[in-house]
């Protein structure tokens, strides 16, 4: 364990029980969603966690924030062992660690105004007066590029990209050190996705934020991350500096992932397709 890392995760495990029987249900087996995951993130850096659906990347993010209780392993954040913390001290620590969710359509309460959504974390943690909170909300919305004149509107009045800005403003409200970004752009169109990724980069630079950036899109992860961990079936199969993992992948699965991503280059795609056919016919013959 190196000194100076903001977040140190060691041998993290999350097993979900699989129940059988209706009346007297018993645990028949376990799904090892996260199975011995270790990594660390130095302050101000981004670790990209990439993998396909069901690989355990989101569960890892939730376990880091203690939104679900890990089955085993340790999560050390700002020198504190999160798994040992009691309810109240965990609540206080949450000021420093926040999350941005994938779906800006369902992660914002439709009955709350934009202003109330962004102010809620401040209210929950008893920060400031009514007036200072209102000023802080305007400031936050400006930071994320959302017109502060719209604080009394409701989320449904805005597009996906605008909603994701509201979600980011809310995550920033308490001045966190770590933000877990769980597929923050996968519900957005390419042109809007670029706006949000740029915003996240700017915020990191301006506020020294540390990101655990979870996504299935390999190019998106590459553009955001200093180091990248590739997950498959609950385990990290490869981890290293972003450039190294992508340009000299060491694990077969990483190679397979990288060559499966369609890129906007018809010639390269044709070569790859021909290669896949060669492999398939060689295997068949």
């Amino acid at each position, binding site marked *: 364990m190196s000194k100076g890392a903001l977040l140190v995760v060691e041998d993290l495990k999350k097993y979900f029980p699989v129940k059988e029987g209706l009346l007297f249900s018993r645990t028949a087996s376990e799904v090892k969603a996260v199975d011995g995951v270790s990594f660390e993130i130095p302050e101000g850096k981004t670790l990209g966690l990439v993998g396909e659906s069901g690989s355990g990347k989101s569960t890892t993010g939730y376990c880091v924030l203690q939104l679900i209780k890990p089955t085993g392993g340790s999560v050390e954040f700002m020198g504190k062992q999160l798994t040992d913390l009691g309810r109240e001290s965990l609540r206080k620590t949450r000021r420093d660690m926040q999350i941005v969710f994938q779906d800006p359509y369902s992660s914002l309460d439709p009955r709350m105004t934009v202003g109330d959504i962004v102010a809620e974390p401040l209210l929950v943690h008893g920060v400031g007066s009514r007036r200072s909170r209102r000023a802080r909300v305007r400031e936050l919305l400006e930071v994320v590029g959302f017109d502060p004149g719209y604080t009394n509107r409701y989320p449904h009045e805005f597009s996906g990209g605008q909603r994701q800005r509201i979600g980011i403003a809310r995550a920033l409200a308490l001045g966190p050190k770590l933000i877990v970004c769980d597929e923050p752009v996968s519900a957005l169109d390419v042109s809007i996705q670029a706006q949000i990724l740029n915003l996240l980069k700017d915020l990191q630079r301006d506020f020294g934020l540390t990101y655990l950036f979870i996504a299935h*899109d390999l190019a998106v992860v590459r553009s955001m991350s200093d180091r990248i961990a590739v997950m498959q079936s609950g385990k990290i199969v490869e981890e290293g500096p972003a450039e190294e993992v992508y340009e000299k992948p060491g694990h077969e699965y990483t190679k397979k*992932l990288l060559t499966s991503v369609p890129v906007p280059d*018809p010639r390269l795609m044709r070569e790859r397709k021909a290669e896949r056919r060669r492999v398939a016919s060689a295997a068949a013959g």
Partner: protein
Amino acid sequence: MALLEVQDLQTHFFTREGVVRAVDGVSFEVDKGKTLGIVGESGCGKSVTALSIMGLLPQPPAKIVGGSVHFEGFDLATLPDKNLEEIRGAEIAMIFQDPMTSLNPTLKIGTQIMETMREHLGYGKDQARKRAIELLEEVHIPNAKDRLNDYPHRFSGGMRQRVMIAIAISCNPKLLIADEPTTALDVTVQAGVLDLLEELQEEYEMAMILITHDMGVVAEAADDIVVMYAGQIVEQASSLDLFDNPEHPYTEALLGALPQIEGAGIREGRLTAIPGRPPDLADPPTACRFAPRCPFSDRNDSCAKEEPQLREVRAGHWVRSAHPACERPREPVGAAT
């Protein structure tokens, strides 16, 4: 004559907020055995175009208010429902984005595959069953004979999409419309499904319309590409020409907004975002629809006053812009790759 000829198609939605011009004058052709990729962002009208061809739009609120859709000489836009039903599913088949919801969860896979053939081809039970097993084998589902009796929940996302494809090709359609067929799938599964579509296309000499938001997917699978923006075609070319020499500022910007997977300085760099968002199609500007977001347009331009027409800037390459790349004075282009 092309297999499918769409001429000046206009599909509008009549809503309380006004008339939404979802598809506003779209024309293209698809030849036998070829794949046309329609690419664009949400709300650009790509799916409504497909649904208009299939006659699957709820009317009202939708209505095809103009243009024609000629398929083997018949105009589908004006064909009575009864005749359309004979073509739909048999001659033209469609697969959708979400393989989780497009199969009926309460019916066995076999029943769902056989249904189409019994309806359109008049197959008996045994004949349909035999063909269903063959079809599952063709889409590379192992143990085809046993899997026929399974319900959809026993199949993974990729396998369900394979079942959907099996149903779609069961009547030997001449045209397959695939609307975001791999969007819900993981990348490693996506490649397999795209390969399968191409394999079947060769075998059955089927034409295909592939609708997607993913520039990589059209680069992989399409022969010709149509780029749509705000209900209109803004660029149309062969796949190679489109990616080698994108002409429309929107196409360039879309490609520029894609994060790169390889190269130097990716982490430090910023992506070329497109400012703003597409216009409201209930009240589209009378000028170029991309002008407010276009880096090459300014207020004194023709494109700020009148709508540019789709024109051929070189053989087979059509663009709807007053500022295609080939006509611009040389200058630092921010939006280029």
